[in-house]
């Protein structure tokens, strides 16, 4: 249109002490809640009812209803200890929540890379201005990946039923023909190999694309653009395969007998909408903090459309998985939903999950204005992130903890620890390079973006 304002494209994000403090407060609060959680659950296994009452008062999120079932579970636990009940120890809950959160945050960070790759693959110009923000998420991939691997080495027997050797031994009384048939995939070599290849691969692609992008800042021209485009295309193919396999071995194999052909998509959809919400929150936050002056409501609108569209996409995938299993009614398939729907505790989260991840963003972001106004979008994105955290909680916890699953300071604390680390590491990364890729060949299109 010709009459555009001049924007400063050389700005750099300063990770000032104010922002660092916010990240550290999140981290510190997380650690405090984590410690409270650990103390309370390790004491909860004992007989003292006083301690149990103490944990109940500390447990901010426990509902009144839970108190009753908690009491019942407590009594049951006492019996179980006498009867030599296999598998549950209070540390299992820590392993479960670590596994849950590392997968959740690994997803958010890899979606940052995927989002950038997608923009290059689709030749999208509008996102050139904000591209550095999702790009910086990639730095968290190795962090979450290492936590994931450590958790696996620490807690594989508790998290994954298939890791027990006796299941594969035909002479053993606990020999399981179905699991033995899955042995080519469900073994330590494949699991660890694939996990390392995926995490290293994602990080490797990120590293090379990022370096090209930073070199482009100094050089200009389109040479780097085409190189990143080639890399991005290969990354998208690699990510399509690796994210599916990762979801099978990391999450689907927790419910070892169960299988779902939708699961790769389901996990990807949940990751993607969470990642998009985090990107949107970062953009809104930076804009409110006085950065990214060139980002206008049209860019915000596009991000809002992404969050809206992929919330619906997630619902579509979620429901497609549910309906086929519900309708076919085959016991080996329905077990997954039976576990979640027959439990008083999980069924509440199950329905809450649909409301918070579908009805809320669908109705709240339906109008054009809601997607263009940062204040509304900010609330919706925040809620969507929490909602998908519960979605992953529901994928992992019922399979690992069975009826011992709970939501207390431990789970919230672990989430806050990861969130604090994420904010700190990504913030540092964001500050380490110019905030805007000023020599991106499509920068002009992004500056004049209007819809």
């Amino acid at each position: 249109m010709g009459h555009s304002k001049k924007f400063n494209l050389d700005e750099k994000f300063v990770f000032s002490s104010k922002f660092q403090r916010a990240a550290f407060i999140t981290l510190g609060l997380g650690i405090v809640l984590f410690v409270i959680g650990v103390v309370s659950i390790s004491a909860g296994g004992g007989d003292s009812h006083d301690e149990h009452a103490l944990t109940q008062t500390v447990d901010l999120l426990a509902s009144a209803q839970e108190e009753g079932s908690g009491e019942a579970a407590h009594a049951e636990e006492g019996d179980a200890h006498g009867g030599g009940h296999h598998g549950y120890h209070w540390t299992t809950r820590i392993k479960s929540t670590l596994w849950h959160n590392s997968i959740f945050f690994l997803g958010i960070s890899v979606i940052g890379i995927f989002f950038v790759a997608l923009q290059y693959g689709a030749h999208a110009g509008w996102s050139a201005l904000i591209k550095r923000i999702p790009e910086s998420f990639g730095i968290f991939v190795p962090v979450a990946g290492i936590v994931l691997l450590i958790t696996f080495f620490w807690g594989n027997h508790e998290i994954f039923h298939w890791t027990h050797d006796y299941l594969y031994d035909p002479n053993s009384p606990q020999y399981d023909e179905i699991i033995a048939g899955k042995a080519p995939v469900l073994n330590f070599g494949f699991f660890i190999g694939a996990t390392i290849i995926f995490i290293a691969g994602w990080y490797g692609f990120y590293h090379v694309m990022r370096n090209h992008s930073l070199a482009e800042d100094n050089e200009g021209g389109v040479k780097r653009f085409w190189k990143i485009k080639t890399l991005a295309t290969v990354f998208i193919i690699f990510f399509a395969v690796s994210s599916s396999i990762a979801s099978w071995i990391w999450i689907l194999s927790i419910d070892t007998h169960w299988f779902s052909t939708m699961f790769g998509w389901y996990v990807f959809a949940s990751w993607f909408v969470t990642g998009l919400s985090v990107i949107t929150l970062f953009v809104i936050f930076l804009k409110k903090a006085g950065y990214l002056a060139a980002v206008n409501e049209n860019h915000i609108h596009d991000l809002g459309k992404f969050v809206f569209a992929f919330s619906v996409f997630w619902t579509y995938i979620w429901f497609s998985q549910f309906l086929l299993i519900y309708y076919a009614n085959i016991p080996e398939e329905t077990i997954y939903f039976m576990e979640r729907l027959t439990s008083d505790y999980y069924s509440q989260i199950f329905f809450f999950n649909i409301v918070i991840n579908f009805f809320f963003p669908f109705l709240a972001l339906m109008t054009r204005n809601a997607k263009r106004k940062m204040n509304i979008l900010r609330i919706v994105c925040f809620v969507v992130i929490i909602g998908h955290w519960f979605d992953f909680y529901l994928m992992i916890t019922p399979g690992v903890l069975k009826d011992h699953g709970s939501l207390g300071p431990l789970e919230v604390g672990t989430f806050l620890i990861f969130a604090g680390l994420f904010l700190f590491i990504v913030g540092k990364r964001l500050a380490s390079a110019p905030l805007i890729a000023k020599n991106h060949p499509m920068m002009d299109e992004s500056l004049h973006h209007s819809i």
Partner: protein
Amino acid sequence: MKKNKHFLVGVFGDQDELLHGVEDIRAKGVKIHEVFTPYPVHHLEDALGYKRSRMPVAAFLFGATGTTCAISMQTLMSGVDWPMIIGGKPFISLPDFVPITFEMTVLFAAFGMVGTFMVTQNLKPHKAPRLFDLRGTDDKMIMAIDLAKNNLSEEEISKILKDAHAEEVYRKDFADAKNERNFFKYLQDLFINGVTESGRFPR
């Protein structure tokens, strides 16, 4: 009954000149009837001062109607009128209703929107559009100004258009009695002549 319509047609060759022209012409108090462009021009609606369409509201209401109809239809059919056991499910099993509810929501919204659009834009089946200049479908932007709705004289408007870099300005009259034909005559014409250019576009 029907009056003949008199228009002044301005032909523009460049989209930026058209956009600035629209702003200048409106600033001088001339009311623009319509602008025809061969492709969508960004910001033209803003320049013409069009209000945002309320079609999304209509879409939501039609969609909500579809949802309600679908759920009540299925509840009445499989719950009340003819209950049948299918797959051991309850007669009214909401998950099974979702695909049909979704489809009917989309169907109602789509048909409702097409209908609303046709009614609001007066697109009747037998309506012959006023074609100002066929180059508007090719490489020129055509601006039409209704002389009856402007207080300025034809010469004055013509000068304003020329000042706004219109390549060509000419007057075009429509004999509306011929333009707004009777629906039955249209059908009769359709049967006898088929859809011909002369039948569709009387000029």
